[in-house]
């Protein structure tokens, strides 16, 4: 298993280079997990991607590097301390990097000879593939599939020139990866929504949710999705609500700042019982915070966002496969219970790419509309018919003679505004009754580690991969560690938590926020206290190494 970093300034083409290299590594028989670390600027500064690859599936990033490709000296300065003793720094020979690990090659000269300085990244890809003892077998197809036609030949030449500049240093036995996809978290959410039949997506561009809008825009014509870039997030969610009312499977996506603008409408979906899925791709707040970085600090916000009381479901996405299957499930549950479902992702998951087993569109959870109740002249359709489970038969306007009347005001069964105390009680109870059914469908947190563990780590969402890998490493010494990683998080499923809480000596919450929001939720919902916390809030995702260090520090540093 290897870990390399590609770094340069914004505008240097690191993102494009990383995309090509990742595809070549995958075609060469590698599993991958790549994180993207970008500054909120278009040019300059320092950006990097970190590609971890090997011949077994990977679910998180690690800190220690085997290699660095440095476009500039900043990359070296920022990252040389992460580089292992026998690692390499691939860079142009002109860079002032004084390090015995430096592998200085005439990258720029080669690019200049090819008469396009931008192909320096392809020269470097060629060199990197050689260093790890891969061939250029898949290069032509990948370049053809990803570059403008007139750029293919020159980049192919650059690859070959770079390949010939150096010698192999590492050897990796390739595995079969043609049964795997290479996707980012946001792409997987998009694919899940498409599989679940999304017809309408509205959003306002906001990092790190914007690539969702880009995905749906790209698929709009071929997948029959109306995609609307709204004037603001308030419009975005109200559009999605309107489309859903009219019968379209609808979704909106944003980050915390945009979600803040959406909260009144979130309550509207609650009282009007209009199915809606809203994705919050979290970034560090408050306010503008760190626009392009990661955090898990919206949990307590989204579980209580909007005035008043109404049922909602919050699902924290744990990994790329979750992004697909849980997005589809969220659409089904939003329709079944006629509630808002909030998907919590974050920049780390949204922008990272991973190899995962092929997602199966036939495997997703679907909601099959029940047979419509016939309408008679003397009993017109009641959009908010009082039922035992709180679910009223849902119809859409124009598809029958039923008149579908919905309100943000409190209303009677037919959707007429009311101020009746009796109806108010009946409607509040009807809406909240839906939670009883919903709670039966909750998925318990995933358990990972030793079943007889004495130390239990708890986490949610995108820290899943790092927590699991840390537990595996900890258990190599003593089989004492377990972890519960929440996906469904509100309402909080508590059965498995109660079971392990009764067994273990200590519970440690591992969270990407400053206040331990999951720990607070466990106290509130399950009366369970965490003894220790491992928290990180610097905008850079908790790594396996951070968790191991955190555990070590808890043990008094020995």
């Amino acid at each position, binding site marked *: 298993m290897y870990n390399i970093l590609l770094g340069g300034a914004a505008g240097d083409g690191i993102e494009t280079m990383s995309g090509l290299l990742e595809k070549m590594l995958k075609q060469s028989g590698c599993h991958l997990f790549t994180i993207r670390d970008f500054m909120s600027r278009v040019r300059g500064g320092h950006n990097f991607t970190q590609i971890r690859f090997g011949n077994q599936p990977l679910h998180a990033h690690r800190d220690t590097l085997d290699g660095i490709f440095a476009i500039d000296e900043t990359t070296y300065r920022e990252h040389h301390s992460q580089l292992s003793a026998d690692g390499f720094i691939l860079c142009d020979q002109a860079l002032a990097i004084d390090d015995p690990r430096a592998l200085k090659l005439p990258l720029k000269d080669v690019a200049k000879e090819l008469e396009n300085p931008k192909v320096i990244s392809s020269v470097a890809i060629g060199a990197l593939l050689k260093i790890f003892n891969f061939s250029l077998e898949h290069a032509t197809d990948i370049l053809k599939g990803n570059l403008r036609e007139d750029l293919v030949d020159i980049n192919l030449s650059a690859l070959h020139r770079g390949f010939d500049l150096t010698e192999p240093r590492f050897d990796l036995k390739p595995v079969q990866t043609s049964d795997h996809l*290479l996707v980012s978290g946001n792409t997987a959410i998009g*694919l899940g929504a498409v599989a679940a039949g999304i017809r309408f997506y509205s959003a306002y561009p906001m990092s790190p949710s914007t690539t969702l809008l880009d995905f749906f825009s790209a698929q709009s014509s071929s997948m029959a999705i109306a995609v609307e870039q709204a004037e603001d997030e308030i419009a975005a969610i*109200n559009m999605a*609500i*309107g489309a859903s009312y009219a*019968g379209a499977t609808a979704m909106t996506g944003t980050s915390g700042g945009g979600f803040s603008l959406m909260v009144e409408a979130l309550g509207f979906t609650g009282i009007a019982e209009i199915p809606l899925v809203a994705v919050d791709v979290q970034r560090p707040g408050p306010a503008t915070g760190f626009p392009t970085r990661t955090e898990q600090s919206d949990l307590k916000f989204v579980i209580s966002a909007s005035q008043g009381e109404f049922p909602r479901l919050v699902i924290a996405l744990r990994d790329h496969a979750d992004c697909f299957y849980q997005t589809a499930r969220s659409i089904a549950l939003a329709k079944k219970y006629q509630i808002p479902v909030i998907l919590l992702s974050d920049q780390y998951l949204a922008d990272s790419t991973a190899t995962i087993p*092929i*997602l199966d569109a036939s495997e997703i959870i679907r909601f099959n509309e029940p047979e419509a109740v016939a309408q008679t002249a003397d009993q017109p359709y009641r959009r908010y018919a009082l039922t035992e489970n709180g679910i009223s038969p849902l119809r859409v306007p*124009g598809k029958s*003679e039923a008149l579908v009347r919905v309100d943000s005001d409190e209303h009677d069964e037919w959707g007429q505004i009311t101020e009746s105390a009796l109806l108010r009680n009946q409607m509040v109870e009807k809406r909240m009754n839906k939670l009883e059914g919903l709670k039966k469908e909750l998925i318990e947190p995933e358990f990972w580690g030793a079943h007889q563990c004495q130390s239990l780590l708890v986490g949610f969402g995108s820290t899943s991969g790092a927590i699991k890998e840390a537990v595996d490493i900890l258990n190599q010494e003593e089989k004492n560690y377990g972890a519960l990683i929440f996906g469904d998080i509100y309402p909080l499923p508590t059965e498995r938590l109660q079971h392990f809480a009764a067994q273990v000596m200590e519970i440690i919450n591992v969270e990407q926020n400053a206040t331990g929001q999951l720990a607070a939720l466990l106290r509130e919902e399950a009366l369970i206290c965490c003894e220790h916390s491992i928290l990180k809030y610097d905008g850079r995702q908790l790594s396996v190494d951070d968790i191991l260090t955190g555990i070590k520090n808890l043990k008094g540093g020995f």
Partner: protein
Amino acid sequence: MNKTAFTTYETAWCPGCGNFAIIETLTGVLNQMDTPPHQVVLVGGIGQAAKTNQYITANGFSGLHGRSLPAAVAIKIANDDLTVIVNTGDGDSYGEGGNHFLHNIRRNVDITHFVHDNQIYGLTKGQPSPTSDPCDLAHKTNTCNMGATFNPLLIAIAAGATFVARSFSGDKTHLAQIMAAAIKHPGYALVDILQPCVSFNKTNTFAYYKQRVKPLDDTYDSTNKLAALEKAMEFGDTIPIGILYQEQAPTYADKRPELFDTVPLIDKSVHLSEVQALINSYI
């Protein structure tokens, strides 16, 4: 309940409110059309005018204050077979919903927007709205604007609206004509309907409007944008009513023929094999 005709329910409006004439006229216009009630969606935000959909037998969407337009355009996008009509007030449309007003003009989705403009906030009992008359400190009341008055027609024409009209609740014949033309217009149609608020607006009364409104004469060319902009600036001793501006331009749906054909979006589906092929393109 008569299933084939639009009828009205009992309302919560003040006796003498201009909304009565508007709802009566609208119901009459709807009954003149071939579209049955279940094919019509009446959308509102919040406010006295926004309650209109509560009182007519049709599909009804009573959304949030200021947010009727985004919901309305999305309803139309989702199901192009529906006739979508927004009824809401000047505060809802131009104040709280100002950003949506501007940008939905650009979208030109085929919906109709009736703004019941009484130049006052009624439901909150008498605060100035964006369209309230201007005043200075010496003449300040609770119901006038110390800032400039918002001119919705001028802004709509400038922003590229394809149907911009004004009418008056006190002239039902005129109102019916304009309403019918607005509903028929392919694209976003704005009708600003002057309407007295008998409870809170003591300036812009029925008599005030009655004296001032003047229908555009036959020589007026509603396709001349510059003339329309000039006409839209007239608001004082004379208030022009009628279609100030109209043009035939591609609608939102016209520009996306691959999504908007004879099958409404909600009835479209994508075969599972196509979805799987998209997924597999990431291998």
